[in-house]
């Protein structure tokens, strides 16, 4: 495959692309259009036994945090590594940009975040629009500062009631993360505890460790790793609620950490 610099190279490369799309289409066609009846054994088993075995009314939760919690652990690990990786690549980008003046050092992380947001100036802002943008940022601060706590509470609600209603740790965590971002935006200068990246990263690690400990807790009760230690007890859903809270904490801290760093509050 030639580097498409010439006209001929360009045609050649488009032909290659068409060819590969056609090849993949040929392989995928039978799978996508399969019409055999959907297997329902797992569904029927879950409908009958799912609630009794895991305590979760929301059967998706019962799989996500019960039967297949091993997968969920893997998923949170992917998130953890991806956030760390993005962060380390980002710090290299920042060092390449190298336009942050030295006097930034005295400001708090949240302040820097606000600065960076102003500096970057939205998306396609020309110079003369800067002023109105600053106004808009002030408005943004006022609104987000008020909304932040409400969203935070909503996030915790979604997190803790995942076993009975749609939602759960992950979704709640994302909402908590956005609440953290809002709080950071809304309180420039004040610098809430949650917008401190070091606090967030420690919180994330702690939640990760807690999650590992919870997955191992079945050991003490003879189910081995990834079992539900309260399986035989009266209310096994307690385990799922705790897990939801831990997953939510972890996701919230990870994503909040990521977003705040991306907004420029990186120390």
């Amino acid at each position: 495959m030639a580097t498409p610099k010439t006209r001929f190279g360009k045609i050649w490369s488009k032909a290659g692309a068409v060819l590969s799309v056609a090849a993949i289409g040929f392989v995928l066609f039978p799978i996508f259009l399969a019409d055999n009846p959907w297997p329902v054994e797992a569904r029927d088993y879950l409908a009958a036994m799912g609630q009794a075995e895991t305590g979760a009314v929301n059967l998706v939760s019962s799989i996500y945090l019960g039967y297949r919690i091993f997968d969920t652990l893997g998923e949170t690990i992917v998130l953890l590594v991806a956030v760390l990786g993005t962060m380390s690549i980002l710090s290299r980008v920042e060092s390449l940009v190298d336009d942050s003046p030295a006097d930034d050092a005295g400001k708090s992380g949240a302040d820097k975040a606000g600065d960076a947001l102003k500096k970057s100036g939205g998306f396609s802002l020309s110079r003369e629009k800067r002023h109105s943008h600053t106004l808009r940022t002030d408005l943004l601060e006022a609104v987000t500062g008020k909304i932040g706590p409400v969203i935070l509470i909503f996030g915790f609600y979604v997190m803790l009631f995942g076993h009975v209603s749609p939602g759960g740790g992950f979704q709640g965590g994302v909402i908590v993360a956005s609440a953290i971002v809002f709080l950071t935006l809304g309180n420039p200068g004040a610098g809430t505890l949650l917008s401190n990246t070091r606090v967030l990263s420690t919180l994330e690690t702690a939640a990760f460790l807690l999650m590992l400990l919870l997955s191992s807790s079945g050991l003490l009760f003879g189910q081995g790793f990834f079992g539900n230690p309260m399986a035989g007890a009266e209310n096994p859903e307690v385990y799922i609620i705790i897990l939801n809270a831990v997953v939510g904490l972890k996701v919230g801290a990870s994503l909040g950490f990521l977003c705040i760093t991306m907004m420029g509050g990186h120390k």
Partner: protein
Amino acid sequence: MISLLLILIICAAVYTLSSSNLLHGVIAMSFVSLLSALIFYILQAPDVAITEAAVGAGVSTVIYVWALRYTKRSDDGDS
């Protein structure tokens, strides 16, 4: 209904890939996510719908916008 939504998604997807302004592409992409969240909701998958809306339309859009902030955003490398 689903077919209609899917056609909309495909239109947005084609627009995403063909538009010369990457920021418009990002917006179309988050539209794709929102529409698929709607599909999941219709298909009795509320959990997936919430996740897709929060993660696909929310978090990933933020990351895209962040990435484009560093750059000039136009797609001049394509024919």
